[in-house]
């Protein structure tokens, strides 16, 4: 369970409490609409969450729901449900609202953890990731040979230096 909100938590009880205000609405100008022409305004939001919902998709996988809404949407994607350590982090993140760093930073961390999980999963399945292909280095070789050679030399030197440091420390 990622959050405890219910539809009852999201009621806007207007009750037209402003209708007795002196001057209420006298300067209303329908042309003063910064959303034009994007929005064909009909103020449907004022009726609340009352539209006839489409049929609801059957819940077959774990879906993490925003705490800012009362229910799952009528449809949703089912790809890649939360799993493993990254899934734990994602479930923690979804306890926070979308306006909170608590929501987004754990998700960023979860994505990085998920990347390592992906590599481990590949290896478990006997598939060693082909980094040359996955990073598009064939295209780099074809279109940007000079840069690739330069980067490769820099990388080789860096690795060499680290290896040298490591070996010389070991000797001492």
């Amino acid at each position: 369970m990622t959050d405890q909100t219910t539809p009852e938590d999201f009621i806007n009880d207007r009750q037209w409490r402003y209708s007795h205000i002196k001057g209420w609405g006298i300067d209303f100008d329908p042309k003063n609409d910064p959303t034009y022409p994007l929005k064909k305004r009909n103020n449907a939001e004022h009726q609340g969450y009352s539209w006839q919902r489409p049929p609801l998709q059957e819940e077959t996988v774990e879906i993490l729901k925003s705490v800012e809404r009362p229910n799952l949407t009528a449809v949703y994607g089912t790809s890649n449900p939360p799993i493993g350590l990254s899934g734990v982090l994602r479930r923690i993140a979804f306890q926070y609202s979308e306006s909170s760093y608590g929501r987004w930073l754990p998700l960023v961390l979860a994505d990085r953890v998920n990347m390592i999980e992906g590599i481990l999963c590949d290896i478990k399945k006997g598939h060693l990731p082909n980094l040359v292909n996955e990073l598009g280095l064939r295209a780099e070789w074809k279109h940007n040979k000079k840069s690739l050679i330069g980067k490769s030399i820099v990388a080789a030197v860096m690795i060499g230096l680290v290896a040298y440091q490591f070996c010389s420390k070991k000797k001492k």
Partner: protein
Amino acid sequence: MLAMNYRGPYRVRADKNAPLPEILHPQDAIVRVLRSCICGSDLHLYHGLVPDTRVGSTFGHEFIGEVVEVGAGIESLQVGDRVMVPFNIACGKCAFCRQELYGNCHESNPEATAVGGIFGYSHTAGGYAGGQAEYVRVPYADVGPVVIPDWMDPDDAVLLTDVVPTGYQAAEMAGIQPGDTVVVFGAGPIGIMAAKCSWLFGAGRVIIIDQVDYRLEFAERYAQCEAVNFRSIGDPVVFVKTITDSLGADVCIDAVGCEAAGNTMNTLLGRYLMLQGGSTTALHWAINSVKKGGIVSIVGVYGPIDSLVPIGNVLNKGISIRANQASVKRLLPKLIQHVQDGIINPKELITHRVPLEEVADAYHIFSSKLDNCIKTVLIPPFA
């Protein structure tokens, strides 16, 4: 089936054993993909900048295809129809869809309320598999997809699912008045299209600013606008003031979003440390370059985390900021007509056609701006 498979930042592969999509809802359709594009905003996913982008995801929100299966509730589509599928997933019934805000549907993304469902755009946008695959599940298929007219080239059709409507809406939101000077930041496909469409609203002068020369040359030719490399003009804000009687541009369009170059601090905080929703450099320039009382239109994509913007200047200058994901469904009838009338020729943007099997190379070429790449189309086998 064959599908693009995200493995982590800068790593993708073509997965030959991806599961076939299934009908999960009565208003679903399954579409066999004929063309899909890599969008500039896919690069934000590819670079690991969008939170909740899970390993194993298939990207792709710009695609067309042939309907091969429909759910029990589908009335407007039939098997065999060739359709362009808007990138927004929209129910057509909620308070927002009923006001034609199809990019803001309230019944397509349970995971975030700030954004509606988008194909292949992380779980922050609903966790849907995308169209860089042989087949894709299309929810609410009675609402979004539009049958491709017989006369239309598929390459034009695929660009009508995002690039053209987003560029057009950037200009539309800008409230351009006849004679206005419009400055577009970003000469990617969206910026180029925004520059082109600015003329349709009566712009008197259109200037596009970027740092990539080949894109600027393309923009100058395609959008018939002035093109300026910000590396050669010093401070872009001073440049814009200099060429606008010191008053500022009437309208500025941010068509860059979260990966803007040009400011070290923004790059560090937004792109490398991810402590804000991306690098806001283009938005800074837009706010500071526009005239008092001017309009800034944002179609560049930013992450959901807080971002540093000069909001004090927005207040003091009385700027209106307008932004949204394009409402593709709303705009399609008009844009199809513009294509038919030869006013917009979308397929000229396409520089690369790549087999889906070579998706990793395609991403790298687009991301690294190799081989003068403007727009890449992925072609699935048997398409």
